[in-house]
């Protein structure tokens, strides 16, 4: 018998050949049953798309809150008047002004983790320029406000310490006020406006800040020196009473320490002895964002559960269709074994079919997830942020789910008895 010279492959090359042939057979088997394969992939597609859209919306919301917090101020800590009981009359937070300018001074002196501190009082009042008028929030603040709230001026300048000390009649306008009092393109700097019949010289215009996280237009305001505000605008009976103190912690990490130091500084200033309740409250933006973060976490977990169930159902679908495929192709499996396929070749064959099914489903799911994310951003105008990590994880999970659920049918195929399989009708 004449044997032609046959070149043989090394182990690595043979493995590479097997992988290639196996992938080709798997792709062909799936293509032959396109309709069935497509329906099988649907679970995977929906699961992966849901994960990606969910993470994108969640991260978009997180980023939005983050940006809001950053725009409110850098590492900001707020002190507001607390519940007090005076002579039997009880009042909730902010009901009585228990904070004073001296509290601000105490914080400035005694708290090393705070880099800047300011206080404010606000009152709604009519502002008049020429024949235009606008009702807005007049806010009396100190010059450090610009630094604490991280809110620069767009034109002109913020008022100075000297103007604060001398109770100068100067004002810095928010963008909304400028839009409502001035003609488009007109520079308000050096014009004169009237608040409660008192003329104020406009020295600066604040940069636009937009809405706060609770939906308030932050640009609808007029900033005046605190001393001027209490004397000229609010007509305060007692000088030095403040509504709110804003402090800026040295770093984000220093916020908890700053909160503690501020609390003890103000307690000392208020002569609150050990065991007595505070008559003020110290809050951070984390406290305020906490509630919405908790809600979004619940929502995120819920969506994760739905996505997991979808992937699970998708995986079971793949297992089901592979079991059908193994039964249908019993004779083929028997034949492949008879002509030299080892058990692991058959195992690999069906596993790769599961992997191709689930990875194709995953890939389509990724595309759909990106599309849905884009649509949500476009139609619902929600902030979204596509995360490459979530895409990669969703894709890998889909592949793993396929291989996991494909294992049982593949093992069943690999353990078929070739003689029985060849006789299968």
């Amino acid at each position, binding site marked *: *018998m*004449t*044997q*032609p010279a*046959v*070149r*043989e*492959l090394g182990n690595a*090359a*043979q493995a590479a*050949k*097997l992988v*290639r*042939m196996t992938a080709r057979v798997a792709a062909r088997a799936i293509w*032959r049953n396109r309709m069935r394969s497509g329906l099988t992939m649907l679970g995977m597609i929906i699961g992966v798309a849901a994960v990606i859209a969910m993470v994108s919306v969640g991260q978009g919301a997180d980023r939005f809150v983050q940006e809001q917090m950053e725009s409110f101020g850098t590492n900001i800590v707020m002190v507001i008047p607390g519940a007090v009981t005076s002579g039997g009359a009880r009042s909730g937070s902010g009901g009585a002004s228990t904070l004073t300018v001296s509290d601000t001074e105490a914080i400035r002196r005694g708290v090393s983790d705070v880099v800047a501190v300011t206080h404010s009082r606000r009152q709604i009042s009519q502002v008049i320029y020429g024949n235009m008028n606008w009702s807005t929030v007049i806010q009396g603040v100190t010059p450090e406000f610009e630094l604490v709230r991280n809110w620069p001026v767009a034109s002109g300048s913020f008022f100075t310490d000297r103007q604060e000390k001398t109770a100068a009649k100067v004002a810095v306008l928010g963008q909304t006020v400028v839009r409502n009092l001035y003609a488009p393109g007109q520079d308000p700097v050096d014009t004169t406006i009237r608040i409660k019949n008192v003329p104020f010289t406009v020295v600066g215009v604040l940069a636009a800040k937009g809405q706060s996280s609770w939906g308030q237009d932050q640009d609808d305001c007029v900033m005046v020196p605190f001393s001027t505000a209490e004397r000229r605008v609010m007509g305060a009976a007692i000088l030095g009473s403040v509504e709110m103190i804003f402090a800026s912690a040295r770093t984000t990490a220093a916020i908890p320490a700053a909160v503690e130091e501020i609390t003890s500084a103000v307690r000392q200033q208020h002569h609150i002895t050990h065991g007595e309740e505070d008559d003020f409250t110290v809050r951070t933006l984390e406290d305020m964002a906490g509630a919405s973060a908790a809600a979004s976490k619940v929502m995120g977990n819920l969506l994760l559960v739905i996505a997991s169930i979808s992937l699970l159902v998708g995986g079971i679908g793949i297992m089901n269709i592979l079991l059908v495929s193994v039964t249908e192709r019993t*004779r*083929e499996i*028997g*034949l*492949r*074994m*008879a*002509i*030299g*396929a*080892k*058990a*692991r*070749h058959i195992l690999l064959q069906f596993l790769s079919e599961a992997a191709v099914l689930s990875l194709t489903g995953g890939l389509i799911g990724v595309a759909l997830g990106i599309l849905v994310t884009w649509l949500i951003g476009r139609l619902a105008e929600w902030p979204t942020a596509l995360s490459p990590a979530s895409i990669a994880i969703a894709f890998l999970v889909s592949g793993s789910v396929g291989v996991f659920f494909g294992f049982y049918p593949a093992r069943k195929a690999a353990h078929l008895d*070739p*003689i029985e399989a*060849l006789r299968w009708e």
Partner: protein
Amino acid sequence: MTEPLIAVTDLTRRYAVGEATVDALRGATLTIDRGEFVAITGASGSGKSTLMNILGCLDRPTSGGYRLSGVEIAALDGDTRAEIRNRRIGFVFQNFNLLSRTTAIENVELPLFYGPTPLAEQRTRAADALARVGLTHRARHVPSQLSGGEQQRVALARALVNEPELLLADEPTGNLDSRTSADIVAMLRDLNRTSGLTIVLVTHDPEIAAAADRVISFRDGSIVADSAAPARARGSAP
């Protein structure tokens, strides 16, 4: 004397069928040399198919020995037997067992997947095998476009593609009419004469069996007649 290609000694195979057991083979002993063309005949249930499965390394005997080219098969694991089936044995089945919706040449290529042939050589080797059965012009056709005889020739090409030492044909003409049957048998006859390929053919048809050089008859799991027995007894008596 050189080692015979097949040496089977006192082979038994017992199946459990529910509570009962069936003795499909009850102590068969035979040797087949390289280059022989042997027909195995017998009624259905006589044990000839069981013997074929064992000779093809698809099944293992309950007791007894089977040496293929001097290698004891019963002792080998599944993977090694798969390799032997791939490299040294070619199978032809009654119902062809071609993959549907797969072209003739791809069907012929199939055993090369599991062997060491480089990918680039697979197609040419499959084409050579198809040429040996005279079907080069049908390479791109799928089984449903081929006649029964053509399908069996494709299956024969698939069996030959790895240059086996042994061709096992289990009722290869069972699904064919008498004229195509004769063609297939003639082709086997020719392969045996020109290439010296060892062929073991199972058939219940005495006419087909007559084409072989040696006929072994089975009944109830035992050999009842072997046309070469007298000669062999003379040649290999201890």
